[in-house]
């Protein structure tokens, strides 16, 4: 193809883009402004991201040090220092383990969710746009993985390949990419039958143009809403692997495993299982509230007026 043709096409595209913006069915322009809930949530997420970076250096103890005088102690002074949140089942400092664990929990879940989105959206939109045998093939494999229990898939992969952080991320990403794929494909199909896409097709737009200009922007918000939940599921997936005795390798801590291994402490009134649960909750709730805020502000502006 000659350069001339290419540049001509580009010019057409720009012209049509401008005219398209005037159409009544065009997707609304989005602005990101937050309520106070959104700002608080952003602060919480920022706090945890900072902890991911500096957690180990501000922790009073190393995550593997068993320096407490006993297991499941309440907060207080110990022989080797002050235990601000008490000790866990192996007389390690709970606070230090939460600070160290932030890296694993947040790192693994964010990485896995992002990869899941990358895989899921790419394949989902590909299937929706291309249809036919490509759609059929990807969808069957996807349904097959989705139909099997996630814990079982995790168990098989980790039993076969061993448990390391890259493998945990990869496993979680593939398992959760299946749900993203379904959503992305459904959204893609939905959008492909909308008038403005049909209009674009009638105008003879290329497939990639339609994806970039029409499908992705319209699918972005529902996918973002799902992102928050998917992140929670990845955190829970890693912690449910710890229920089966898999998950992050010792002595590394992740919050889900910390809840699991200190569960017995609840019967003694120890908070060793509650602190990591609160850490998980604060991070994941904050992420979801931010997502809620953005979607309410941009999409549901009229809905808000009704109140």
């Amino acid at each position, binding site marked *: 193809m000659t350069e001339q043709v290419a540049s001509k096409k580009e010019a057409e595209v720009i012209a049509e883009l401008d005219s398209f913006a005037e159409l009544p069915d065009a997707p609304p322009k989005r602005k990101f402004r937050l309520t106070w809930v959104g700002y608080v949530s952003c602060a919480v997420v920022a706090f945890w991201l900072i902890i991911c970076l500096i957690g180990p250096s501000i922790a009073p103890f190393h995550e593997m040090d*068993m320096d407490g005088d006993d297991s499941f102690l309440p907060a207080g002074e110990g022989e080797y220092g002050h235990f601000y949140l008490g000790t866990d089942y192996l007389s390690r400092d709970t606070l230090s383990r939460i600070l160290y664990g932030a890296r694993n929990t947040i790192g693994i879940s964010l990485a896995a969710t992002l990869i899941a989105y990358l895989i899921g959206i790419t394949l989902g939109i590909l299937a929706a746009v291309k249809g036919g045998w490509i759609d059929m093939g990807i969808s069957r494999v996807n349904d097959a993985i989705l139909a099997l229990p996630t814990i079982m898939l995790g168990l098989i992969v980790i*039993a076969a390949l061993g448990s390391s952080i890259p493998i945990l991320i990869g496993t979680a990403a593939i398992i959760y990419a299946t749900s993203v794929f379904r959503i992305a494909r459904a959204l893609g199909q939905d959008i492909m039958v909308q008038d403005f896409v049909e209009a674009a097709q009638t105008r003879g737009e290329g497939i990639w143009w339609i994806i970039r200009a029409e499908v992705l922007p319209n699918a972005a918000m529902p996918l973002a809403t799902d992102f928050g939940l998917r992140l929670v599921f990845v955190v829970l997936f890693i912690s449910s692997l710890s229920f089966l*005795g898999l998950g992050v*390798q010792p*002595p590394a801590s992740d919050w889900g495993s910390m809840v699991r291994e200190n569960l*017995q402490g609840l*019967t003694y009134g120890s908070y060793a299982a509650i602190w990591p649960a609160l850490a998980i909750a604060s991070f994941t709730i904050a992420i979801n509230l931010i997502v809620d805020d953005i979607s309410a502000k941009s999409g549901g502006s009229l809905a808000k007026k009704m109140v």
Partner: protein
Amino acid sequence: MKDDKSKAELNYRDLTQSDKDLVSKLATGGFSRREVLKLSMATGVSLVAAEHLLTDGKAVNAATPKKGGSLRMASNLHGPDDQLDPTLFTSTIDYTRGRATYNSLVQHSNDLTPQPELAESFEPNANATEWTFKIRKGVTFHDGKKLTADDVVYTMKRHQGEASTSVIKSVLASVKEWKKTGSMEVKAILESPNADLPTLLGLFQTKIVKDGSTGEGIGTGPYVMDSFQPGVKSVHTRNKNYWREGANLDAIEITAITDPVARVNALISGDMQMVTQIEPNAFRQVESADNVTLLSTPAALQLGICILKNTAPGNNDDFVKGMQYIQDRERIVKRVLKGKGSLGNDTPISSAHGADFCSELPQRAYDPDKAKFHFKKSGISSAQLFVAPVTGGIEDVCLTAQANCAKIGFDLQLKKVPTDGYWGAVWMKEPLNVVTWNMRPTANSQLGIQFGPGAAWNDTFWDNKRMGELLSLSLAETDPAKRHAMYCEMQTLVHNGSGMVIPAFSNINDGIANNVMGMPTVPLGQLGGCEWPEFVWLA
């Protein structure tokens, strides 16, 4: 009966304080019956008194069993692989169902002496190369068929031959032939002398099944199997035609709760009357609940780290020494096992083995300086240890070692792997791995199984000729002092030369409701060596 008891108490009161201490030690276990009898003679306690202390050490056992009632017991593991075929028993729930349903030729008592069960008597020939078993008369299977020598020979032959899939095939390999020598008499002809054969016939897998069957839940035992759903539960009702006393309950239900926290909660909330495997973190919860009791039976349940001697880094003796000195044994017993365990001395024999335990062998202590010295001398600065939760506390032992290694600059990496597939893929394959063994009834079988040169499960691949000699010599030795010297030598060899690191032994910790009486204390498995169905009753 009553007279005997008062006599026993009278005699007990006559003792001096030091004798009383000794005798009370007897009652809490740790001595074999042989020693008890010897001691009773020395101290002047009548045989009756000694026997009372031995069998009725606990006050609860003194009362007469009451008939009736039913209970539920929850083990720690079950699944679709639950078995009714004794030759394939591998888990507590199988052993317990086996005890309720079948009988063995020989039964282990609390002090691990073999007692007649379906064999009325068992006699060796002069050099213990042949054993004759007289089969009990008048015993019937649950379907009404009479027990004969044919059933016994058939059962025993299931452990032999190429097509045999018995898990104790190699344990019973010393038997050349099982021979029917009368309608109610069976002879075992051995390859080499073995004075301990009867104890082997008390193993969980040797339960007697009907000629031509694979068990199928029909045995001669105290309870008849009503229903059996693998991985769900089994229900057993009292065998009205049981050939002896026992079977006090109307019905028992056997199930499992795999989650340890849920298992303890089920016990305390009264859903279950007996549960196995109370984890150290739950001791306080069980002990402080007023409706249940924590049963902690001292046993040689080893928390072991195997270092393969036939490959790097285990072929370096200094590395092994370093790993042994870095074990903070006191802390493990105190913190990990919460005091319900005993120090290990890198040999598989503990004081629970009685007279054969070598108490003279100096206890290896936590010594980070020596560990550092040996690690340095070995030239090795890091190693990878494969850990699976094969027994309660083993992961925490490894975590403790890891933290202590880090303090002296040695990088001990832990690789956590699942339990399923562990025995095939990791154990005896990876250079450093963890292991546990059910306690064996004799020191000889315990040492032989793990450290016999060329033994099938020599899991540190430690090949020591002297060890092999001593193993067979000690089986034929009858003089207690010489025998003890031999066992001491074997333990010293293992302690100094093998690749085994055993920082601690765990007790067997189970929980029962307070109204469960008559619990046996056989240390060979959970809940009194899984012997409880025959003995317990409800107050």
